[in-house]
């Protein structure tokens, strides 16, 4: 079974994000970049599927300039078999990303595409669903459990939805996006890192794919969030209850 896993390079979630003073973007100096944490979970799930089946191929795809090679190498070190880098130096919105990915899927014909439910930079939570729509494939977002049928032709996916867990099923091919509890991603091992150096990263160019990637969503400006005034520090529970009752009037 061939599984395609999408990988996005994002600022480390522990990084403090600061908006540039002119509002044109975020300060990128001294930012450490990582694989989007939800993409790491998606990759882990693909690796476990392959290990369970004892065969198959896990292919990574990322879009961006050459620096994303770093995240692809990390993914290869975790155990992916090969990678595709779609070179692109312009800002893309989710629809453009989905259109590029749809081309890659047509070319690679995977049975399953595993993606993160959202990237933690733009927080859009759109690309997986859009890719599914463009391909006419079924989708299971926010997955917390994936069960492949014995004949490997279908999946049942448990999804984290409001107020509980929902299970849906469909015949493959399909798209699954990962939520937090799907698994705990492994770390790359030293032998994994050594092997990754020899694995293939095929480079293609986004503008050669013949898809419309003009942005539909444009960011005009960024603002830092409004700062709240510092609150009161209280010494005792009694004082706290008093303030909540008399001043805030919430109890």
């Amino acid at each position, binding site marked *: 079974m061939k599984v395609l896993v999408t990988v996005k390079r994002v600022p480390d979630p522990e990084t403090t994000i600061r908006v540039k003073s002119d509002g044109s973007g975020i300060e990128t100096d001294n930012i450490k970049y990582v694989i989007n944490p939800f993409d790491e979970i998606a990759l882990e799930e693909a690796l476990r599927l392959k290990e369970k089946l004892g065969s198959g191929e896990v292919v990574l795809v990322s879009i961006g300039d050459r620096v994303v090679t770093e995240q692809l190498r990390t993914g290869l070190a975790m155990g992916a078999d090969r990678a595709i880098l779609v070179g692109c130096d312009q800002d893309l919105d989710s629809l453009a990303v989905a259109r590029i990915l749809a081309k890659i899927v047509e070319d690679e014909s995977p049975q399953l595409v595993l993606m993160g439910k959202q990237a933690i930079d733009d*927080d859009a939570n759109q690309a997986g669903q859009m890719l*599914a729509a463009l391909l006419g494939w079924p989708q299971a977002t926010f997955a917390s459990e994936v069960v492949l049928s014995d004949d490997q032709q279908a999946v049942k996916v448990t*999804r984290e939805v409001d107020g509980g867990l929902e299970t849906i099923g469909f015949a493959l091919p399909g798209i699954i996006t990962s939520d937090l509890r799907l698994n705990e991603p492994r770390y790359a091992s030293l032998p994994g890192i050594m092997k990754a150096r020899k694995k293939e990263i095929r480079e293609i160019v986004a503008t050669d794919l013949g898809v419309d990637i003009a942005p539909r969503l444009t960011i005009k400006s960024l603002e830092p969030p409004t700062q709240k005034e510092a609150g009161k520090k209280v010494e005792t529970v009694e004082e706290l209850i008093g303030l909540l009752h008399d001043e805030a009037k919430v109890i």
Partner: protein
Amino acid sequence: MGNILVFAETQKGRVPKSSLIAIQAGKDAARKLGGDVLVAVLGADTADAANEAAGYGAAKVLAVNDAALENYLADAYAATLEQLARANDVTLLAATATAVGKDLLPRVAARLGVGMASDVVSFHEDGTLQRPMYAGNTTATVTLADTIKVVSVRSTAFDAAQPGDQSAVEQVSVSLDADATKMQFVEFNETKSDRPNLTEASIVVSGGRGLKSGENFTTYLEPLVNELNAAMGASRAAVDAGFVPNDLQVGQTGKVVAPELYIAVGISGAIQHLAGMKDSKVIVAVNKDPDAPIFNVADYGLVADLFKAVPELTEAVKKAKE
């Protein structure tokens, strides 16, 4: 400006509060941008829900009844909304960014071949929208270039619609081809709880890694939650540590809440948590680390050992109620 189509969810034949928020957001957009508000209600038998949705002053309710729409499934619902949007001169399609809204709208947008803005917090007369990015560390002002603009709205940024003039209910049929009916609903396991819903509760008490274990959530946090008739939440750190299930997670990658009172217990205040609760009206933090970032957003901060302070707090609330 054409029409504004609001997608309303149904839960056991009712329209949930989250969808009343979408209707209100639609009205807000109509006031600023023009156009009539239409509300779409989908299901196998929408009679009750469509009737209820008609009570909020929309120009029209579009009710679609089809056996394939009995349970929410992204493929059939997206195909239906696409057809409604194309047939009704729609220039703005909106729904609340619930689990369903987040799953559904991007699929509709891609079917329409248009872009989408997620988690919109405000509409402006000049056509720009605002939405948070980077876990709420920035607010972006964005535009959508297409004739049909698709947006999910953040539930904490709009009030629920108030009852208004009765709308006409129009029955609409759609055609769903094989491509739109590939997904099957298997089951829904509802989290059983006597407590209020996390996203709708007026008081939320959340625990973090400081609680140290799942048992301590039960021993220390639950009595306070029950005493306040609050909903229980948790930080991602507590979920990652396996103390509580992920559906309690408040934050960028969990639920976004804005109750009257939010009590953060043993939560340091990572950016990703703040993104999910900083719009709460009153924030209380209990943490033994005086430098914890949670105190920067708290209205009232108690620097104390939670294992001592929380039982005291529970007792004090009990007394205050007597």
